[in-house]
């Protein structure tokens, strides 16, 4: 892929990529921005190469996820080595968020990382379970199990929240 073509594809996918980076960084906007920049650099400098085995979006999402994980691991090591205290979480402040969005974010916080990733790829990014599995580097069977469990769990949490809200 030529650089111009690569940049143009990245630009088209930029909003979706930012959404995925937010998800990988637990809605921390600043972290998501950094992770996205690092991912783009990896791609532009050729450290991550698209081999055409999946769709470009699936591959790009895998790069973003891996970059976020590497960054978190490095931060954890740095905290241990330099005895730094854990920084306070800076979740994304969505000014125009509705009650339903806030409830959804709380429910997403209550499920495991893998379940959250699968369900977000399917519902937020309109991917198929197969594409989600490719992005996460897991088998389709495993992705399907995570998808079913997370959907059930999210619905149960949302139902409980609704019950409390209307009680």
């Amino acid at each position, binding site marked *: 892929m030529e650089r111009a073509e690569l940049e143009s594809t990245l630009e088209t996918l930029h*909003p979706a990529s930012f959404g995925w980076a937010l998800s990988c960084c637990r809605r921390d906007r600043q972290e998501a921005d950094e992770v996205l*920049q*690092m991912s*783009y650099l990896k791609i532009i400098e050729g450290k991550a190469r698209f081999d055409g085995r999946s769709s470009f979006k699936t591959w790009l999402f895998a790069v973003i996820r891996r970059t976020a994980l590497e960054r978190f691991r490095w931060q954890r090591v740095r905290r241990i080595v330099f005895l730094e205290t854990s920084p306070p979480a800076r979740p994304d402040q969505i000014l125009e*968020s*509705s009650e339903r*969005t806030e409830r959804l974010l709380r429910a997403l916080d209550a499920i495991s990382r893998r379940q959250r990733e699968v369900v977000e790829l399917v519902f937020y990014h309109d991917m198929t379970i197969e594409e989600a599995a490719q992005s996460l580097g897991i088998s389709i069977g495993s992705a399907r199990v995570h998808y079913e469990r997370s*959907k059930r769990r999210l619905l149960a949490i949302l139902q409980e929240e*609704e019950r409390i809200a209307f009680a």
Partner: protein
Amino acid sequence: MPSPDDLRDAFRELRAAEQRHVPPFRRSMERRPSGRRRLRYTFAIAALLLVVAGASLLQRRLMRPVVTTSISSWKAPTDFLLQTPNAKLMKTVPTFGVPKRGTSS
């Protein structure tokens, strides 16, 4: 009770809210992440410190006077463990019925 369709709608709403504040693509492409640069500096400083520490250790080892001992005069530091009480008894042959020198009868 919420249905899977409600879930899909909630995600759609979340996406719409988040995508209203996406940072511009050009900024993401052009600004080099500061963390990365800091990481490089940290590694460079750590490598430099390692080299300096290694060099000083090597120099100290080279400057230390070499003490040579001839093999015939060398004594094992654990030699004393072999010196048991009454070790002399093990080196002499006991005799029976022979009067000791200096004694009568």
